[in-house]
């Protein structure tokens, strides 16, 4: 419906689920589905406002891996140049999902080596994983997790 913006439609759907549907649903499994749907709509609305969160993830990974490549240039030059090569591969990719895919596959390859310095690459990934998890927690539906117990 062309008259209304996407986020306004989402907001209306969310209100309807909350006000019209949820109170009328008695069955436990269905209730959790409605609650999870409301939470998912909130996440989509946030993406409409702020874009794909992978933009931020990719940006931080490129920055931190770039810093690491510079540090490794002296201590582990071969590994450092492999990290730099990976980053040059991702530089021209605009789609955030594709860029993350390339970074992920590239880092997997880097981590298969047995150089002690690979621990530094792991550390970069661990820091980002912890940060992403913390951000993602906002969209977690506690009722969904609780229902599995």
């Amino acid at each position, binding site marked *: 419906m062309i008259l209304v913006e996407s986020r306004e439609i989402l907001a209306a759907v969310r209100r309807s689920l909350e006000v019209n549907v949820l109170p009328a649903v008695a069955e436990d499994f269905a209730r959790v589905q409605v609650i999870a749907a409301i939470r998912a709509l909130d996440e989509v609305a946030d993406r409409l406002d702020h874009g794909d969160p992978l933009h931020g993830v990719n940006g931080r990974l490129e920055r931190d891996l770039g810093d690491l490549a510079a540090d490794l240039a002296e201590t582990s030059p071969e590994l450092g140049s492999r990290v730099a090569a990976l980053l040059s591969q991702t530089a021209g990719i605009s789609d955030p999902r594709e860029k993350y895919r390339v970074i992920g596959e590239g880092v997997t390859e880097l981590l298969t080596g047995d150089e002690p310095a690979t621990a530094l690459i792991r550390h970069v990934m661990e820091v980002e994983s912890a940060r992403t998890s913390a951000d993602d927690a906002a*969209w977690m539906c506690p009722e969904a997790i609780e229902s599995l117990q």
Partner: protein
Amino acid sequence: MPQVSEDDSVVGGQVPVPERLEEYLSRRAPALGTRRVNAVERFPNGLSSLSCRVEAETDNGPVTWVLRAEPEHGVIPPYDIAAECRLVERVGAAGLPVPAVLHVESDPAELGSRFALMSFVEGEGYRSADPRFETDTAIVPALGLRFVEMLARIHGVRGHGLTAHADAASAARAFVAVCRRRLAETEVLPRPLIRHALDVLDRRAPEGDKTVLLHGDYRLPNLKWRDGEIVGILDWELARVGDPASDLAFTQLVGAGPCAIEGDLADYYVELTGNVVDDRRIAYYQMLEMVKSTVIGLAGARDIVQGGSDLRLLSVAGLAASAEPVISMLETMLDRVEEVSA
């Protein structure tokens, strides 16, 4: 016999309508003597297989059954409900309390997916963080003892029919391969830290001669209780053969609850079974069990992408992804334990 139109056809992974199930049972399972199926309701808990409570009237009176069906996509592929039922029957024949398998349908064309009909075990269930544990603190120690005793009995089952392995390390590596394949088949975005963890687990599987039947998901919500005794062990889809420490490690971390088998309960387990439970094994299997659960959880994202409709899986996948730092921490703990052992 009820009239069922083509419009009543069942979509795979969805709860079958009573009339359709009634027609099916009359035709394909006459020995059950089904006269009428009154209700089919999905159990709200559970993540993988679709489990429903079936209320029916039979030649012998009213009954309650459990219908357990393979999901359309699911988080623990590949599914094989018939193999799971064979295991349940063998475990039951060994004297353990499990639901009776009443009927298995291996043709997905019949009701939309392969499924089994099992007896409903009457009994009480506890959640891992059950509020009753706070009001009745005396209950926990007793549950803990029964919990350990039953795991010891599971680990003592022979003739379970599952694939055997030469030793515990081979079993662990075989299971790492299973996790690796599941990850490869379900990964929506690459997870380098999980792939790395699988490499670590592959390289560092502890040696050991003893392998046993592992339940693989041994936690309070998968047990039914009556008068303080376990009367039903449910959900065998993650069962496998491996080092007994794996089930113990699962109870300590992934399946953690008041019955975590550590300290005195671990000593009691060793007393009952004679199985070796050392820090090295526990550290390794805590990491393996965490990776296993993470891979299963991450598959929730694939399920959604492929057309799944259970929106809980969005949160499950998010929670699984958040386990990566924990897995890294477990690797560090494994490093430390190995250093001390060396």
